[in-house]
């Protein structure tokens, strides 16, 4: 199911409160980066209902220039760390998140590693005061 980003929270709220749907559990929240598509970023919410034992995936597309979406932490507190992870890896900002910081990567990390334009390969390292070039740039 695809919703517009500004309707996301309202949609999830109705999916949760409707007795026939009752999606009371947010299994997962993640994102995908499609540099060639418009919109570029897709946030996916995997929902589950304890009462009816069914699952649903809700997706919202976000434009490249302004990857922002409302946080769902108010509705599903589990989204706290999951949204931080998406912010960390994709640079998608969740409006209204109580504590939006990097979670897996170090706080001073440059870039968002799971974006498709983030090169795979060596990363320079600081070791005992010296800067060591990435593996693929050492020219050995």
């Amino acid at each position: 199911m695809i919703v517009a980003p500004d309707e996301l929270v309202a949609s999830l709220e109705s999916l949760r409160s409707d007795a026939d749907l009752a999606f009371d559990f947010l299994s997962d929240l993640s994102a995908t980066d499609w540099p060639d598509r418009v919109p570029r970023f897709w946030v996916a919410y995997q929902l589950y209902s304890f009462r009816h034992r069914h699952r649903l995936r809700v997706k919202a597309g976000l434009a490249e220039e302004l990857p922002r979406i409302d946080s769902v932490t108010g509705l599903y507190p589990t989204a706290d760390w999951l949204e931080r992870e998406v912010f960390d890896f994709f640079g998608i900002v969740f409006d209204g998140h109580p504590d939006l910081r990097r979670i897996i990567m170090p706080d001073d990390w440059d870039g968002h590693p799971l974006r498709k334009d983030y090169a795979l390969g060596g990363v320079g390292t600081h070791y005992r005061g010296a800067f060591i070039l990435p593996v693929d740039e050492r020219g050995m």
Partner: protein
Amino acid sequence: MADPPDAPFPVETAESMPHEPYRGLHEETMVINMGPQHPSTHGVLRLVLELDGENVVSCRPVVGYLHTGIEKNCEWRSWQQGVAFVTRMDYLSPFFNEMAYVIAVERLLGIEAPERARVIRVMLSELNRIASHLVWVATTALELGAVSVMLYGFRERETILDIFELASGLRMNHAYMRIGGLVMDLPEGAEERVRALLRLLPGRIHEYENLLSANPIWVERTRGIGHVPSEQLIDLGATGPILRASGVDYDVRRATPYGGYEQYEFDVPVRGEGDCYARFEVRMEEMKQSLRIVQQCVERLPRGPVKIEDPKLRFPGDLEVGPDGIGNSERYVRHIMDESMEALINHFKLVTQGIRVPPGEVYQPVESPRGELGYYVVSDGTNRPYRVRVRDPSFVNLQSLPHMVVGGLVADTVACTASVDPVMGGVDR
């Protein structure tokens, strides 16, 4: 208070202690780092604790020290190679990661592994669950002061890992499952080893359960500790033994069966107390239920192939153990080199380029020893996954840890952390 009559010197009692100077202790709190290098954090978990004396005022878990970029790596490898990556994530439950990944890709391909492969997958997964819970009970007992259980738990786990080694060649990080089946069939004697294990383990598990449930220190340190109500756990996304110990009957194997679990008889143990002791009870009971499933697997294990027939999808090769280790059998090498040009081309294409998976996306959850392990796999139709997202239960479950420890004592933080059973390899991926 007056001195006892016979005392040669003034005796200080609780009442006679000067209270004034100590009052300052309660006016400010202390922030202390527990971990990342702490033996009771099961890896490299760092807890920033704010303490008021011995009481925990706030707790903030800090993760990420073990990040290995597996999700990114998977995007740059062929579909079949992904198995070797995901198995290294949660190092205590490699088979569950492999299973979730291969089933997700099989769903994208619209195929199903042969029956024998599916039964073996379930059997190894359930043995893996027992091994993982044994490590849990061993390390938790060690942290709470029952050292002998640690030795027993690891001893029994080793007997299970021996079977894994026999089947896959490795104690951990097996990469034994393949999209469309298994890499190779169980070797001779593996079935008998599983049967021997089924005779050995029930008594041992019972013994360890008694060893701990009759241990006053263990009971004292886990009962009533780390209680979280079930509604809060659901909101926090906690799954697995933690959630079941709070009275919610949610097991992915039951709720949305996968890999043939609907054919097995087993109970989902549920306790209502929601404390560390209930989590212990749930895990012990789960081991017994896993043994039941393994028993059923051994009984029904059908004969037949362990890979799908489709030559465009099945991983080429016919492995066997030779004098210099595991490799392609002579028969297979002769077949592709001497007999069939098509077979050689097929082998070459599948090894160098891999298979192609039609575009689509799939979310496949499985029940790992720690809870719902979900794989969200996206394909854009090429020979590499476009995105492999892992919802690791350890990562999500850790969010409920602050709710368990705040308001309790520092010493109980150890019991609570252990009761969540986080595996940092899975948390940080």
